[in-house]
């Protein structure tokens, strides 16, 4: 997956997303519970969500929000991201997998309550970047994550090998 263009704005992001989305090969056992939906508010502010379900038990949830860079109104950055892959244990009113922080997780990389960190195999602990070698958590993008999950499911290769990290 080519890196996100910089400096970033919505038109560049959308072109990057279209290219990667069109090149994605969805496995046969995967259903898009919610296709990739972007809510653009301005050239500097947008959010997106994307849900994929595998068979009846596992799912991927992607969520991102971009906003203006503080003090630099003409630049924007990814304010929030969460890439989750794990067991479905709850279902929301909308029929989507409902995730709570205590739920089981195969892998989750997010910056929800702290700088980008990793959950691997269990909700706790949070592995901060200083403990994760081989992968820059804050530079991971949604397509690399989703493709990695596809690859893991197809080959049964361990997730840490797929994403090239080790925890120290």
């Amino acid at each position: 997956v080519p890196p996100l263009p910089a400096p970033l704005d919505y038109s560049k992001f959308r072109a990057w997303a279209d290219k990667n989305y069109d090149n994605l090969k969805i496995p046969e056992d995967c259903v898009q519970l919610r296709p990739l939906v972007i809510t653009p508010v301005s050239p500097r502010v947008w959010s997106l969500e994307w849900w994929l379900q595998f068979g009846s038990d596992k799912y991927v949830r992607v969520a991102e929000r971009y906003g203006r860079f503080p003090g630099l109104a003409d630049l924007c950055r990814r304010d929030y991201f969460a890439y989750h892959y794990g067991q479905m244990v709850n279902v929301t009113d909308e029929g989507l997998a409902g995730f709570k922080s205590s739920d089981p997780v195969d892998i989750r990389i997010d910056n929800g309550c702290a700088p980008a960190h990793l959950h691997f195999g269990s909700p706790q602990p949070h592995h901060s970047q200083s403990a994760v070698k081989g992968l820059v958590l804050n530079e991971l993008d949604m397509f690399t994550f989703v493709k990695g999950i596809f690859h893991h499911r197809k080959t049964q290769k361990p997730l840490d090998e797929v994403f090239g990290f080790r925890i120290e």
Partner: protein
Amino acid sequence: MARSQLEESMSPITERFLTLADVEEQIAKFEGKYGVSTIEFLKNPALRAEMYDDEIFQWESYEAHREELARLDEELRGKYLHRVRPQIDQSLQPIQNNNLALAA
């Protein structure tokens, strides 16, 4: 893979456009559902721990979108007033002169 080959299994990326009124309506729904203001939600870790992650994300996003839409609204209003102000001043000028003439 071309998009046409994926149509059976994929939908193209879709965009959802929201107005300031739409966003405020969604925020009001969350506030009604949980019985707290958005400010309380943002400051209350105990409440957030009970919520689905997706709801937290959506509520926070609506608030971020509301701020941006309000900012754009304010910018637009400022630009509009900047353009119409000279016209208003010009249109008032003859009236003022007339009033002065009448006073004389």
